[in-house]
């Protein structure tokens, strides 16, 4: 018995049969589409715990029997694939880019979204225009520049550009910054805070969620980044996993179980990160209306 409203018991409204039918069809279609997307991931996951022969066995086995847990320690202790080293390279690379992006883009977004200065809209327009320019167009001069500086083969060319901002993240953050009431900044100015202090102490705390979203985007993008490391890094010990896994697979083409184990461990941090923060991801995508 539910609560009483006007003498009538409050009972759950029954779903109409037609609606129920529509709902079933809708969910069946969605599950089918989801299965198509999940199948490669599932295949990777089960292959990580099979032998190479089992992976190619016919008929196909949809679950490893037995489960080869040993694939994991085997991979981590290989001398021809410094997996752990490359894993930490990836963590360093993604973490540094995320920190650089959050710092530089939030400063730029504060300027574009919260300060008034002559030519602001023009400069912002030009910044957004950078989104339209394919990275490959500027690749060669930038590469030559870093080589002249003697920094080819280090992480500087991969991280330092983000200290100067990124058009997409600036655009995204500016939307959030524009939502911060102007009076908060005015009050801080009257309280004697400098613009830098206002950005740091007053505005950033109001857009914490946005900063986390941008940081997450940057981490995911950088974790999967392949082209930049391929161009600038030559030493296997310095490779991030995205590149290390590729070179390992190219060199050991027959060792599919090791490749799959590596791919699984590489993908796992991002999957966990996404599951923990999917609400923020959706919020970020909605706010930027891009991608």
């Amino acid at each position, binding site marked *: 018995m539910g609560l009483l409203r006007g003498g009538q018991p409050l009972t759950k409204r029954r779903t109409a049969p037609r609606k129920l039918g529509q709902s079933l069809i809708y969910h069946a279609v969605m599950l089918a589409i989801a299965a198509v997307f999940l199948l490669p991931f599932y295949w990777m996951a089960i292959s990580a715990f099979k032998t190479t022969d089992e992976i190619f066995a016919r008929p196909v086995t949809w679950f490893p029997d037995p489960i080869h847990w040993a694939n994991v320690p085997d991979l981590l202790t290989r001398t021809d694939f410094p997996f752990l080293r490359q894993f930490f390279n990836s963590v360093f690379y993604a973490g540094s880019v995320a920190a650089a992006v959050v710092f530089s883009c939030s400063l730029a977004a504060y300027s574009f979204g919260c300060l008034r200065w002559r030519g602001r809209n023009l400069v912002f327009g030009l910044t957004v225009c950078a989104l339209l320019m394919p990275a490959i167009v500027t690749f060669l001069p930038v590469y030559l520049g870093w080589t002249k500086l003697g920094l080819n083969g280090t992480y500087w060319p991969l991280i330092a550009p983000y200290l100067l901002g990124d058009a997409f993240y600036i655009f995204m953050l500016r939307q959030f910054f524009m939502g911060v009431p102007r009076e908060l900044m005015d009050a*801080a100015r009257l*309280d004697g805070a400098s613009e830098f202090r206002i950005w740091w102490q007053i505005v950033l705390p109001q857009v914490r969620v946005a900063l986390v979203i941008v940081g997450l985007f940057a981490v995911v993008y950088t974790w999967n980044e392949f082209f930049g490391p391929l161009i600038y890094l030559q030493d296997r010990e310095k490779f991030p996993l995205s590149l290390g896994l590729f070179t390992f697979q190219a060199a050991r083409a027959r060792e599919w179980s090791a490749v799959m184990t590596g791919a699984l461990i590489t993908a796992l941090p991002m999957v966990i990160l996404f599951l923990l923060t999917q609400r923020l991801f959706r919020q970020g995508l909605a706010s930027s209306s891009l991608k």
Partner: protein
Amino acid sequence: MGAVQLTGVRKLFGQLEVIKGVDLTVADGELVVFVGPSGCGKSTLLRMIAGLEDVDYGDIRIAGADVTELAPARRGVAMVFQNYALYPHMTAYDNLAYGLRRAGMARADVDARVQETAALLQITELLPRRPKAMSGGQRQRVAIGRAIVRKPEVFLFDEPLSNLDASLRVEMRSQIARLHHDLKATMIFVTHDQVEAMTLADRIVVLNAGRVEQVGTPREVYHNPANLFVAGFIGSPAMNLIPATAGQGALTLPWGTKLDWPGASAGSVTLGLRPDRLSLVAESQAQATGQVTLVEHLGDESILHIRLAGGASLTIKAPGDVGARLGDTAHIGFDLTNAALFGPDGLRL
């Protein structure tokens, strides 16, 4: 405390001139209210005094010093905003202390000053709370505290009561009046609410389209409006403005009624009569007749809206128990005490 002096102050947003040469002096310890319709520039002018908007022409002096080019924090002003503008991630204590810390005050002095201000405003129990855990009235008291704690030369209020409900607004209004009395501070208060303006102000500055239309005490601007704009803007319900023709010591109203007005020079004029100077009279004594189109019962008084035969409308403030109903024929008598006459240029004659 300090006087505020504005000389030839102008402000342009691109090609649009929003403040068109304001000359104004606010005396030391005076409470002046800027009042005017939306978009008249009253908040912009206040922000210019605060240093939050640049001054394109003219200069601003506070306590004798030219502050036109000074940063907001160095002008000796504090401001209370319409939406409180409390830092949401800080407690009330930190909100009050923030400006003092920025000024480099020692921790013990900051604490003493914050506690003293909190006691004055009776917000001591709110100090550990963040703004989201406070009601609108409490937030506004903390916002006022943040202004007081810095002991500024001048307090600026930008429609601080607009977000409060009616009863809180009355309470906060009297609190601001008490503060002004106790602190003897120079205060400039922006509002579009005439009741606030009339009840709080030592002097009212009526602004329209970036210009000062009149500066005077509440009684002056109410009883002796300088022009048609002030006459129509100040007072609720608004003054009745009736076009008339002057000549031979009398005014002739559009419906033919003649009113004695000795000394009126010939020409087109506008007669201004407050609604409380109009009354319902017997048909034989009527100076105008029309049909009641709206009756607003306010308890102790009723506002009658009457449409005359020629299309003109008049508003009458009648006793609360007036028997008039919608559609009734109303006979109206005029009492010309405190009536105002305006020339063709809109200025008071």
